[in-house]
């Protein structure tokens, strides 16, 4: 059986300037407790790779409001006017990536692939500065892999060896990001004994998870 850590311990591991992948889709499937601890410790200069920046007061939105984030690599910021304001004011650098491309870039980072060839983004601003590769007569954008120092995950169940499951649309980027970071920190709704999650239901093998947050009080 492995030992869990507190949210504050997790936040203390993550230095200012770190590059984080944070799972979630408009905060659904985001690790709110780790995020709260990062805000509480006053983290600064973070690069956040995520689907979106959620809403003010919610998920990654809390990090943005608290001024923890210097750079965001995301597909969408339309749900968070604070992000838009900070971006236009030059306080926050935003790199917009098509959502499917973002998913594949994270997957490529975790799977050891050199990149992704996709038709998405050809002929748009998303193609700027990128290589176009022809395969069997058709052009594709070469999109490079993404990796991070930390992946912050929200699971439904974690067993005592940190095998994880996710629930419904809270799954989103969680299993992909679990593969693509040097250090993986997860929080889970439930903690269960080993064996409660059958092998076919494990979505992230516990060996990929470095730290699990202790049960919420």
């Amino acid at each position, binding site marked *: 059986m492995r030992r869990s850590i507190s949210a504050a311990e997790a936040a203390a591991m993550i230095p200012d300037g770190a590059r984080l992948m944070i799972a979630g889709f408009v905060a659904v499937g985001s690790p709110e407790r780790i995020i709260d601890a990062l805000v509480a410790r006053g983290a600064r200069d973070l690069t956040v790779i995520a*689907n979106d920046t959620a809403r003010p007061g919610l998920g990654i939105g809390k990090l943005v409001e608290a001024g923890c984030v210097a750079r965001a690599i995301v597909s969408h910021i339309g*749900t968070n006017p604070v992000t838009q304001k900070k971006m236009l004011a030059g306080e926050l650098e935003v790199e917009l990536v*098509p959502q499917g491309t973002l998913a594949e870039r994270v997957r490529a980072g975790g799977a050891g692939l050199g990149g992704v060839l996709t*038709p*998405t983004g*050809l002929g748009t601003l998303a193609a700027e500065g990128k290589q176009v590769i022809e395969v069997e007569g058709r052009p594709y954008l070469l999109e490079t892999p993404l990796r991070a120092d930390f992946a912050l995950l929200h699971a439904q169940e974690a067993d005592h060896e940190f095998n994880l499951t996710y629930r419904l*649309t809270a799954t989103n980027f969680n299993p992909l990001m679990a593969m693509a970071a040097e250090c993986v920190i997860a929080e889970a709704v439930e903690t269960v004994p080993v064996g409660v999650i059958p092998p076919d239901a494990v979505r992230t093998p516990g060996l990929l998870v470095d730290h699990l947050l202790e049960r919420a009080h």
Partner: protein
Amino acid sequence: MDAREMIARRAALELRDRTLVNLGIGLPTLVARFVPHGLRVAFQSENGILGFGARPPEGMEDPNLTDAGGGFISAEPGAASFDSAMSFALIRGGHLDMTVLGGLQVDAAGRLANWMVPGQLVPGMGGAMDLVTGARRVIVAMQHAARGESKIVPRLSLPPTSERRVSLVITDLAVIQPTPEGLLLRERAPGIPVMAIIAATAAPLIIPGEVPEMPLDGPARAAA
């Protein structure tokens, strides 16, 4: 019937039985209310579910079950959930029969712009670029004009969402099919004369001999 409902009703007639369909946020979401009777359509939400249903009654929401806008949804029996890579493998791999998306502009080449207004509004493309590039059919559902300006233009002034030509544009005035030759006027809204559509459209239109009124209720639904 207000303009938004009319557009949604007409778009719903493009749905086909036993197919996978993605509806964008806003007006396109309304399409789900007008599925012709007898059709079994599975709606996909790009955040990771196929076969979702309407918002559940208050008190029955699942915080782990939302649409791409973060709103609560339900799941139909037989629904499937998956991660973001699988969700876009479905979209980009040609498994999605149709997407209905809102638009800021469509141009004479049939290209769509719907993800940013430089210097003003930069929500980001979200899944729109993948949807427009990957769905088998791309339906744009939008008002014909915004602030008195035609949204159907000779050439996009806003950044394109994809270089692909969309399949169909449905507005409160007309149904327009982009073709290699240009924008073909297929249908007109009830009571709207062809000349009014031409006048309200900044891009040149190809006008066939006959331009019927758009149907708003398919035979399947009428039989219900």
